[in-house]
């Protein structure tokens, strides 16, 4: 058993976005998000509680889950606005365009980087929402939150 340490250069927590259905291991259809400041994954199982006369406590069963990934990034201009000249819709339109167009994408959240075999990732499909770019004079860099609303399950995988 070991803690998950992301402080090494080969084990940095990484989020990769990909055109829906494309090869997420190929750079041609992916954006590896730059300048991430934090990642938060929510796998919130719904619950239904009920009471019975033969029990002093509530019983519970789980229902459908709500999954999402919340990120904060320092905005990279090309990634945010797209390069405007790519066959990949994601790279062409960028994060803002993909959100604005409500285009579904695939993604992976690599817990310890993308290079060391056996390290874990969570994957899914969903939509980019929650963009809130902000800047102020005392913090003169555009930063934004970004939420991936997951369509369906989060799945676990291993880096190959």
């Amino acid at each position, binding site marked *: 058993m070991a803690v998950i340490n992301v402080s090494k250069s080969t084990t940095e927590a990484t989020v990769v976005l990909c055109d829906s259905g494309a090869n997420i291991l190929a750079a041609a259809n992916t954006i590896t998000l*730059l*300048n991430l400041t934090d990642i938060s994954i929510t796998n919130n199982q719904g619950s239904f509680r009920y009471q019975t006369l033969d029990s002093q406590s509530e019983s519970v069963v789980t229902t459908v889950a709500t999954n999402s990934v919340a990120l904060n990034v*320092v905005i990279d201009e090309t990634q945010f606005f797209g390069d405007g000249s790519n066959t990949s819709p994601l790279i062409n339109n960028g994060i803002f365009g993909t959100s604005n167009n409500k285009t579904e994408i695939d993604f992976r959240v690599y817990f310890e980087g993308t290079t060391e075999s056996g390290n874990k990732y969570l994957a899914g499909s969903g939509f980019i929402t929650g963009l809130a770019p902000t800047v102020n004079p005392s913090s003169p860099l555009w*930063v934004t939150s970004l939420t991936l609303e997951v369509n369906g399950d989060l799945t676990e995988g291993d880096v190959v």
Partner: protein
Amino acid sequence: MAIRDTLIANVTTAISGTGFFISSELPWTSGGELLYNKNMKTIYFSEEQKSVEQFIQTLDSNDVENDTISLTAYVTVDAKTQPTNTSNVITSLVSAKGAVANVYDISAEVTNSIEVDKITYSVEYVFNQI
């Protein structure tokens, strides 16, 4: 050093005709006396000091760093009979901070000290740069 050069150039223009002067030399010590005490009504700028700190830490090590650059301008005048335009010159020194480009969160603090019959004005500038 770029900021020091910019300040010197700006102040040189601003104090033209005031009877004050500006030196490009650092305020070193000559014969046991600081140059700005020895040469009154002459402005000297210290060397820049710089500290670098993490401004935003990122998970992919593309950390954004903030440079804090500070330097001080010194000018000494007669404390018994101050030149009448001393306050205007000090104002010009403070205003010079606006001439430095590509910085944010700028400050300038004016202090003074009297020794015997001389008063020395110090203007400390602090600039932040990403």
